[in-house]
């Protein structure tokens, strides 16, 4: 069984926010809810990097661990989903999540947050696949239709990859190989190269 994962190649992400828009449009998320966001580090500085981030569908999901109603579950494909009917809007998943994935439609006082909403890896919820209720609560279930998450499918630079962990990590590994950097620990060679042009040299070596 495939283990679904997201992977964002920050050497390719151009901060176009296409993934964010694609997600919002596909799932018609409520006003103020964005299941995905692009964070830019070192903005405006040489070497700035952007990362598209959403629910990471953790193996040991903190949201699942702290939920008082135990409303989270993991599919056979490793996708972390939740049952909105059992969500009480306590916000604990939001406290625990390192990635800021859980979102709430309201910001009212007295804990009036509404039901939590997060990235479903385009896999819907506990309702029948493709049903109207599922779509209303969780958005489209693309996985059930044999399609991968739209954010990654729409990514113009193919920075954002979504799919079986083995497949996408192999794609990433090949990219790193061609670039001659990434996928290894920092070291003298990666930093300086022999002639000061490490990337060009690595590519040249690769072609031989």
């Amino acid at each position, binding site marked *: 069984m495939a283990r679904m994962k997201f992977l964002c190649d920050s050497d390719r992400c151009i901060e176009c926010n296409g993934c964010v828009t694609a997600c919002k449009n596909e799932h018609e998320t409520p006003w103020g809810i964005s299941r995905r*966001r692009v964070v830019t580090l070192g903005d405006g500085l040489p070497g700035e*990097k952007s*990362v598209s981030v959403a629910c990471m569908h953790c193996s040991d999901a903190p949201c699942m661990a702290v939920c008082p109603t135990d409303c989270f579950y993991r599919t056979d494909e490793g996708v972390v989903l939740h049952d909105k009917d*059992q969500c009480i809007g306590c916000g604990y998943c939001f*406290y625990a999540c390192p990635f*800021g994935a859980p979102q709430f439609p309201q910001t009212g006082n007295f804990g009036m947050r509404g039901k939590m909403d997060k990235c479903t890896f385009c896999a819907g919820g506990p309702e029948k696949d493709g049903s109207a209720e599922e779509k209303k609560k969780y958005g489209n279930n693309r996985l059930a239709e044999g399609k991968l998450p739209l954010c990654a499918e729409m990514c113009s630079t193919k920075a954002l990859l979504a799919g079986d962990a083995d497949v996408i990590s192999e794609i990433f590994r090949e990219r790193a190989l061609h670039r001659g950097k*990434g996928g290894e620990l*920092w070291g003298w060679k990666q930093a300086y190269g022999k002639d000061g042009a490490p990337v060009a040299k690595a590519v040249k070596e690769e072609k031989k």
Partner: protein
Amino acid sequence: MNMHAAKAQASSRGLPGGALVNKAVACLIALTVSASVASVALAADAPAAAPAAPATALATPMATATAPAHNATPFWREVRKTDQGITTIKGAETGTLVQMEGNAWRHLRNGPVTLWGGLLLLAMTVTVLGFHAWKGQLRLSSPATGKRVTRFTAGERVVHNTVAGSFVLLALGGLLLLFGKHLLVPVLGHTLVAFMLQILKPVHNFLGLVFVVALLIMIVMWAKDNLWAAADAEWIGRAGGLLDRSHVPSWRFNFGEKTWFWFGVTILGLTVSVSGLLLDFPAILELRAKLQIANLVHGIGALLMMFLALGHIYMGTIGVEGALEAMKTGDVDETWAREHHELWYQQVSGKGK
């Protein structure tokens, strides 16, 4: 990016799930993509250094004029603890890529707070019931006279019972939030427990205000009668007469009641009130790290308060004959007053020894 890769790899290697974040971060370092621009910048910083030198050159991560090297340990350390990123998505902390405090909060809450909090409440329940089975109810040693002495005015009873009633409901909601998943879900199922919490959570959040107001009135109302008195020393020396069932003279409140008043009601009550109000209005704290601390303070304070409250509720109901009556009707029998609060009885009745 890199954390994604780290996680993908971690899962494909079948690593166990525990301490996932830490593991992911460790893998990050191994898998991170280096930025060629930053490499050049670093080369300029330490051109003639020995192979070990780049590590030290990387020690200044975020504050440099150029963006940091992306596969550097210090860089990811910064990413994990600051919100230096920018994003078009509006909201608190949306620029934070990874917040690490959530992991500590999760492990404290799911670990010691749940375990020790649960054991504490269980221990107190067992102690109280065991004590009752051993000693039985503390009864009056002389017959009741039928003459009543006013112990609590109507106002005092309304305030006390408002605090008490709201406390019980608040405690139920809190207990269900912390233990429901472990104790009730296996018995009642997810749907029913979720239904109960869907009702108790808003009740908890709004009723808290009632509790806070009534608690403040109660503290002001009874503070004077709970001040230290010379008679309290004797009460302590004789352990309140709990074990030998003797009558220890005390004023309106004995030292046991005073202990509950200052530690349970005042200190812990105000602790849960302040932390609870902050959680009710999350905009005040805004940051997740602060909300997590407020949540822990609230939970630990509430568990300790429940721990002491179990003792107080026992003494006020089945532990002492006539105690519940005092809070229900407002008055007690003369014999009760003389046997439990002799100094107070002399004061209110004007009768000497």
